[in-house]
Every structure is written in structure tokens, then in C-alpha cells.
């Protein structure tokens, strides 16, 4: 765990992230450029026609929305168990992106659903689970903002994130169970033809890299804001 703590020092984090950031940003842009190019060059799907192109923006949003929750859960664990100092900042910084990508996943999913099912919302298991995930993100952010004391807020949100982590698989299972009762339909049925795999994977990578880029910038911003607050407090005393 020691290597993790080496970058717990805000100074070290600023140094490291500053060095890495340009490369990740460029890689993100490349992924989007190549992914979009490939995505619009593929032939229409046998079943879904041209709506298959929606897969390239819906599934990556899905994936990154869940990954962000995982990241928050890991940070919460680091914060509670090992008292890793930068984890709280990192967790808080990630949450808005989680909410954003979840919302995008839901909206693009509904827009994909309309040509497929006839209506925008048929309580498909995945979309319903993502709706609940969206509320979890909102609750998490609301709790951060509501508790005034920063340390308390960090601890409380870490506990909430971990409780959510335990519950999320149960929620997904229960929604799946429920949707099979009502014979819900699914947007994505099983296998993806190989020709669609490349743009999909590249876009998934692109979305993930985008999140990491923005996340790092937000953590850096939070570190600067804290330095500014410290300076103001020193000046006041």
C-alpha cells in the first residue's frame, strides 16, 4: 500500500498528475476521433438498423457510470480504513461525473428504446437500475453538501458509498428479477458482431479516459482551492 500513500501527498499528486495529464487528454481525443470515425463507418445492423450507432455512445456511458461508482467505493474504503488523505477529495470530485454519465446513459438508452420498443420507457431492467443509480449519486452529493464539517461529511459519505456498494448488486438483481416477471425487453441482446466491437471498445476506452482526465483536473482544482483557503485563514489570523 506504500506506493499509494506516496501519491497521497497533495504536492506529489500535483506533480504526477501534471506530468501525466497532457498525455491522457491527447489519448482521450484520439479515442473519440477514431471511435466516432469507425462508428459512423460500420454497416447497419441486421436487426437494429442504423440505431446500432447508439450503442457507441450508450454503452460507454453505462460502463463509465458504473466504473465511477466503483472508483468512489474504492476511495471510500481507502478513506475509512487506511485514512488516505486525498481519497475524500477524490471521491467527492468523481461524483458529479457519475451522475452526469448515468443521466446520459439513461437518456441515450431511452432514445435507443423508442425505435426498438415503440415507447421511450418500458422499464427495461438496465435503464431502471441506472435510474436508481442516478438517485444514489444525487443522495451522495446531497449528503456531501449538507454536512458542514468537511471531515464528518467525508466519513459519512464514505459510509454511504460503501453501504450503496453492498446494496447495488442486490438492487440490480431485484430489478432483473422484477423485469423478468413483467417480461421486459432488453435493448441489447447478447452477441455483438465483430465489426461493431472495435468502435465500441475504443469509445469505451475514450469515455473512461475522459473521466480520468476530468477527474484529475477536478482533484487538482480541489487541492488549489484548499491551499487558497489555508492562505486566507493564515491572513485572517
Amino acid at each position: 500500500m506504500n506506493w499509494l500513500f506516496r501519491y497521497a501527498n497533495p504536492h506529489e499528486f500535483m506533480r504526477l498528475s501534471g506530468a501525466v495529464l497532457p498525455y491522457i487528454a491527447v489519448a482521450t481525443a484520439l479515442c473519440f476521433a477514431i471511435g466516432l470515425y469507425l462508428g459512423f463507418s460500420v454497416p447497419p445492423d441486421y436487426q437494429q438498423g442504423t440505431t446500432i450507432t447508439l450503442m457507441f455512445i450508450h454503452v460507454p456511458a453505462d460502463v463509465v457510470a458504473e466504473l465511477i461508482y466503483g472508483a468512489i467505493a474504492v476511495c471510500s474504503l481507502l478513506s475509512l480504513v487506511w485514512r488516505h488523505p486525498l481519497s475524500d477529495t477524490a471521491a467527492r470530485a468523481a461524483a458529479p461525473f457519475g451522475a452526469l454519465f448515468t443521466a446520459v446513459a439513461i437518456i441515450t438508452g431511452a432514445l435507443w428504446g423508442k425505435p426498438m420498443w415503440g415507447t421511450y420507457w418500458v422499464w427495461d431492467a438496465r435503464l431502471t437500475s441506472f435510474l436508481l443509480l442516478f438517485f444514489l449519486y444525487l443522495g451522495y452529493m446531497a449528503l456531501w453538501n449538507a454536512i458542514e464539517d468537511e471531515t464528518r461529511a467525508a466519513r459519512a459519505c464514505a459510509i454511504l458509498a460503501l453501504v450503496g456498494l453492498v446494496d447495488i448488486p442486490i438492487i440490480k438483481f431485484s430489478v432483473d428479477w422484477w423485469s423478468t416477471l413483467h417480461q421486459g425487453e432488453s435493448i441489447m441482446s447478447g452477441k455483438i458482431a465483430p465489426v461493431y466491437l472495435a468502435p465500441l471498445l475504443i469509445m469505451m476506452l475514450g469515455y473512461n479516459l475522459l473521466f480520468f482526465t476530468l477527474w484529475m483536473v477536478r482533484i487538482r482544482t480541489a487541492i488549489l482551492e484548499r491551499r487558497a483557503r489555508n492562505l486566507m485563514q493564515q491572513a485572517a489570523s
Partner: protein
Amino acid sequence: MSVFATLLMRDIKLAARSGGSAALALSFFALVATLVPLGVGADLHLLARVAGGVLWVAAVLAALLSLDRLFQGDFEDGSLDVIALSPLPLELTSLAKIAAHWLSTGLPLTVLSPVLALMFNLPPHATAILFVSLLAGTPAVSAIGAIGASLTLSLKRGGLILPLIILPLLSPVVIFGAGAVAATLDGMAAGSALGLLAAFATAAMLLSPFAAAACVRLNLGG
């Protein structure tokens, strides 16, 4: 009497007095059950079909009403600090509060449910399943609700955030509980739904005291 029992009795007495949370929860439950037919119409066939879901949602919301005060009252007047210093571990204190909450809200709601089910034209076998599902599931509502209550106990207006935090976490309870009733109406066995519900509730009762105690500690220690 043990500290656990003392705490339990005290919280139940507080909730059971007039104007306390027990009466509030029951009234709210009945009111919602009254409002829904006013909203969706008196088609008895429709009402029977939605009874499971409506009554489950109403029960969860009714139980929610008193949750934000679960720890807050004791926190504000300093009693929570005293309780924390007692030989009883905070986990057991939390369990006592969860039990008190269930005994004063969840259980009365369950007992009232057959009457409301009647208003929804729910057939007797489905009503029995509804009763059992509420009996098994409302402890989970109290347990997970206690986690939310302990997270928000330092907030003056924490009551607004509490539902936002715990309702998503409670969705499996509503799904399985109402699902059991729906299965019965369709002529299928409710066993799997009730089993899943019981499993979830058991896990919630076992794990929630630890989470709630951790939250209480961080609010007292800070």
C-alpha cells in the same frame, strides 16, 4: 432491566404516545391508501392489481416519516453522548433503536394492512401474502432507515435528504414485497419473492447496526 431493554422500552413509549410517530405513521398509511383510489379511480379490478405496490410504497413512506428523529432527539439533548458511554456497544444501541422503530411503526402498519387491503379489493389469499411480506420486510425498512438516520443526524433539515438516500437502497424490499403479492394474484407461488425478501431483511438487520453505529460515532466524535 438490561440497558438494551431499557432503551427499547423508552423509545417505544416515546413513539406510542399521542402525536408520536406510531400514530403519525398509521394515519399517513391510511391517508395514502385513501388518496390513491381518489387518484386512479374506483375500478376495483385495477385497485386489486395495484394494491400490493401501492400499499408497500405507502408503508415505506409512512415508516420513513419518523426516521429522521431516530437518533436526532437524543443527539440534540446530549442523551446520545450518555448512551454512547454506557456499557452497551453502539451497535446494540442501534439495534435497540431499530427494533423500537419497527415495533412502533412497521408492526402497526403491518397489522393495519389487511383493513386497507380490503379497501383495495384484494382477495384474502393475496392479503395474507401482503401481511407476511410487510411483516418480513418492514424490519428492513427500519434497519436501512436507521443508517440514513445516523448519517443525517447532525443536519437540522436532514429529513429532506433522508428519503433521497435510503429509498434507492430500499428498492429491493418494495420489489420483492409487492412482487410476492402480484405473484399470488397471478396464481403463482409467492415463495421465491418472500424468500428473497426475508434474506434481504435478515442481512439488513444484521449489517445495519454496524453501519449506523459507525455513523453515530463519527457524529459524536467529530
